């Protein structure tokens, strides 16, 4: 079971959870598992075709999964996945 960290903007869709334990051997499997657990997240992470949105960054520990093997990146129980959308807030 990998730990998936949920960013503030997705927490409502994840039932208020900040961290979720999800099983899966790859980044893709873990994210699928997350979407099964919290279906409301799915539309925010994936296109209708099932691909991850370009604006969704996923980090495995401190590395960008896109620069590893993206959704095929292997993960183990000791890995932490972080979903990271950009934030805009600053001035207002």
């Amino acid at each position: 079971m990998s730990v998936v960290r949920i960013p503030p903007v997705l927490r409502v869709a994840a039932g208020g959870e900040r961290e979720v334990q999800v099983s899966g051997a790859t980044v893709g499997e873990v994210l699928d598992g997350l979407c099964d657990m919290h279906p409301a997240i799915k539309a925010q992470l994936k296109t209708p075709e099932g691909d991850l949105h370009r604006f969704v960054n996923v980090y495995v520990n401190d590395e960008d999964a896109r620069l590893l093997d993206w959704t095929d990146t292997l993960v183990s129980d000791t890995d932490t996945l972080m979903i990271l959308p950009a934030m805009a807030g600053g001035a207002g």
Partner: protein
Amino acid sequence: MSPSYQDLLADSREVVPEVQDTDLAPRIEADDGPLIIDVRETSEWDQGHIPGSVHVPRGFLESRIGGLATHDREIVVSCAAGQRSLLAGRTLAEMGFSNVTSLAGGFARWKQNGNPVVVPRVLSDKQRARYSRHVLIPEVGEEGQIKLLDSKVLLIGAGGLGSPAAYYLAAAGVGTLGLVDDDVVDESNLQRQIIHTTDRVGVNKGESAKEAIRALNPEVQVNVHPYRVNRDNVLDLLGEYDLVVDGADNFPTRYLLADASLMTRTPLVHASILRFEGHASVFLPDDGPCYRCLFPEPPPPDLAPSCGEAGVLGVLCGVMGNIQATEAIKVLLGIGDTLSGRLLIYDALEMTFTELKVRRDPDCPSCGPNATLELRDYEAWCAGVGRHEPAGTAV
């Protein structure tokens, strides 16, 4: 009988040979030239000194020499007229330095004979007092403080992030601050935008911040730009400044700044905030990843609520804005390790700082080898992305 001053000088001459300015002058720029140590007082040094010489006031010579030279290093000691340098040279000889000479006639003769002289820019007595805690830090020092006084920083937004960043940059003596904000102070801003005050509600934020900065440090030149940064003005604005602090509250402005900072080669200090969480990084043009290497596209509006919609802990702004001010100062001074290549995530609820690696994207549409940098219609672009376009659709 105790030796007189003249006796001491005569004795020192026995131990410390004198070198003439005509012999020293051709050697000062050479790679194998001697280490010239000027033992005069600070006020004398400030009036002018030999190029390349190192200032160690006589009273600090014994304590500092170990960090400057090895025992076999060729050292020329100089002072005003060539007497203090003889005594200082003798002390060095007694400490085991074996290749020490004294400049005959000192700086006075050096200058009189038309040799090159450096007159350093120095802080005024008032500045030295105001910035004394900076001057004491070896990484900053008087030279660094002068660099800050000569620096120009543009702040996008005088709000949550811009308030603490501008306040501390002004206190630090950054000589010129530009504040871009078309908004006026609202009562709901005061929970976090600490540069504004209750009696300035309704005043333009740049003007309000200027008043606070004037009260804190009247030496700082504040340029108020009471409009929004846009495609037409961004390049001119950035061109006037050495560094930009991004405290914007929307994606179109953030992507505009990201591209414009690459075009003008202006270092960009980034932070963003929401609720209890903050992000910070530094983007140095051509020397690390850019904003779009990290976030190629903005999320759609429902995934990117503003602080006005989702709320923000007031104190979070102080932490993140001051991280920006810290990074800005480091970039301006060229010291330390900046957040370039790293995204710092601060979670105030957990009180954790997490670091992610940000790498340069070889296919980055803004800084990759095939990128063509042009300012686009960021409003339309940000509104359009994330609308389930098939992969590969040009945006």
